[in-house]
């Protein structure tokens, strides 16, 4: 039954069948036209025998479609690079050990929801004593000193606050992603940092449900954490990164 890793295709009930479900709305008025449009779009996307299985008018000029088809694309997963953070996940205990043996001082982190973002639950999940899903946050780590600035911190203010207290790491949360506001805000903050030549002073971490490590790297951060992050991951990364920087 197994497919080779060189040509992996989506799977419905027969290896290699390519089964894919799609849904989208086309801005068209006529349902038949939209059905046919949906079929053509699916063909363009590389689906064979696409079937428009449902169509519903949503208003004067919109039709919602559900489509099934067989993807003809296949993936060579044998060479697939999963860009993962280069970090060994450690437990609370191990992190303590690591800090004591390899860093030998308290680690100071500063967190904030940047810009207009007021979603604090995510950053609190990482930083607060209470933590997330049973994992206590960085405040609970004896060797961490945490300052959490909370919601809606303007980029300029964060640069200033950081300059005043010189944390090792800056932890920035971005939850709202509409119209890519998270990208814009994260970039703007780096511009401020660059302006004052301080980018390299901190380990720069961005997090939020729309973030991934590759995206954070692309924007110029050192690391990115997405949905479901637990505090240990972040702490492990910070201490290992600091050790690495120290080593240099």
């Amino acid at each position: 039954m197994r497919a080779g890793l060189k040509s992996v295709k989506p799977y419905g009930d027969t290896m290699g069948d390519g089964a894919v479900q799609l849904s989208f709305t086309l801005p068209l008025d006529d349902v038949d036209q939209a059905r046919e449009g949906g079929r053509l779009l699916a063909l363009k996307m590389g689906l064979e025998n696409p079937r428009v299985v449902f169509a519903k008018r949503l208003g004067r000029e919109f039709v919602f479609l559900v489509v099934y088809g067989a993807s003809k694309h296949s993936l060579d997963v044998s060479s697939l690079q999963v860009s993962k953070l280069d970090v060994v996940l450690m437990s609370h205990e191990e992190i303590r050990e690591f800090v004591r043996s390899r860093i030998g001082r308290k680690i100071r982190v500063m967190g904030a929801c940047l810009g207009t973002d007021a979603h604090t639950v995510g950053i609190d999940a990482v930083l607060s004593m209470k933590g997330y899903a049973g994992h206590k946050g960085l405040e609970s780590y004896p060797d961490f000193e945490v300052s959490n600035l909370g919601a809606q911190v303007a980029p300029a203010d964060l640069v200033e606050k950081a300059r005043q207290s010189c944390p090792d790491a800056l932890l920035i949360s971005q939850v709202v992603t509409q119209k890519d506001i998270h990208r814009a805000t994260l970039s703007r903050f780096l511009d401020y940092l660059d302006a004052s030549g301080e980018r390299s002073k901190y380990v720069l971490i961005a997090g939020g449900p729309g973030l991934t490590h590759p995206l954070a790297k692309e924007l110029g951060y050192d690391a990115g954490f997405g949905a479901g992050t637990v505090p240990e991951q972040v702490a492990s990364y910070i201490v290992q990164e600091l050790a690495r920087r120290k080593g240099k």
Partner: protein
Amino acid sequence: MKKLFPFSQSKIEEARDSSARIVDSLIPFIEARSTASVERAILRLLGVDKATPQGQPWANVIVEKLLEKDLLGDGVAYWVGQALLEKDAPVPQLAEAVVAGRRELGNEVSPKAAEVQEALTPHIRQAVQSLESRSREREAMLKRLGEGPSPLLYVIVATGNIHEDIVQAKSAVMLGADCIAVIRSTGQSLMDYVPHGSTTEGYGGTYATQENFRLMRQAMDEAGEEAGRYVRLVNYSSGLCMPEIAAIGALERLDMMLNDSMYGILFRDINMQRTFVDQYFSRMILAFSDMFINTGEDNYLTTADAYEQSHTVIASQLINEQFALRAGMKPARIGLGHAFEMNPDIEDGLLWEIAQAELVRQIFPQCPIKYMPPTKYMTGNIFKGHLLNAMFNMTSILTGQSIHLVGILTEALHTPFMHDRYLALENARYIFNSARHLRDEIVVNPSGRMVKRAEEVLDSTVELLREIRQTGLMKAIEKGAFAEISRNMVGGKGLEGVFVKTSRYLNPFVAAFSRTEASLA
């Protein structure tokens, strides 16, 4: 069992009493007859499980030989007994020789019934023991592994390829399924033989064969060990091979069989004499092997309107129950089917579904009810379909159903993909857990809409059964009493396989099953 509705027990009793009489009056007719499939089942129980290189099962070859010689009326056991008297041998070995033409059946060695019986006895005993050992295996595994909380989550696999089916079924078990039904290929129900070996080419399902049963059983035992609960395996003792599939299922330790006393007649146009005779012996095998049956009343509602025809479902369940009891089944193994099939656009439709489900529950307090999901009103709108299933799940946990056939959001599109089944199981598990004790928490307004509806349905059931009792079941079916379908006594497929037993007809399993049961009790 808690009851949500207040009901006069007397109406229920009247309905049950009618059904008992309806069924009783058919038993002499049934007992006077046997069928090709019953005879083949006897051979299969005796270990005749091979096929010719052309794929014709030995059981079929042998039965046809007797038929050609016009000797089938005595029963295959009679002639096997005679052959064994002539020269004892393991029955499969005898069968091989017969198929190969090296030996012949039909030579009367002794006219004495007792001698023929005696020649058969050790073979029958061995067959019965192997069935018993399968039940004991099951019992031990159930004890050791346990099973999921009620209702059991029942899903189907239907890729057409037994090996893909196994992949799909393993995933389902990991995701919480308790029962795995391997749906049969379209067309199998009308095949007058059971295909041989493992198969990879079915449509809309996978052929039921003994080897496929074995492969899936093995895979599910493994999956069950991993998941830490016993996985029940389901197939179809239905169609032209009801008793045979019961036999091979019992031999491979399947746990449940779709098995209905009238489904084949109504939905597959199988001759009614054939079905009535076949279902009787098939249920004896299942009863003896401690297997569940699932009846097919849900099918009524895929053709007829669920709101209008609710009472026919209950009437049919009562009849199915009586047939099953006559075949020696315990109520705890009679899984009566019904379904959530009302038009989702009806105002208060959910109330009527709850009323119906609760009514069924209360009429059959000891039976494990098999509750089927919406199918008829499922469409390509998979999101809406997921919701119909959610309301079905809700109704199931609220009314205390026992075997819950998990509804799949792509029902209108294709046999389930792996992730369709995942989403469906997630749906059921979320709602069951979240509403686990809702049934304990509520009481139904005794003068409300739901109780009124249930009472109406019950009244119509009583009425319908009263009529059927008068006309007789066969005539009633001719008149279209069920599912708006009318079938003729001599119409439909498979009548040629029905015959009247001669006076020396022999089916030693009938006695063996009841004897062993009695000795166990």
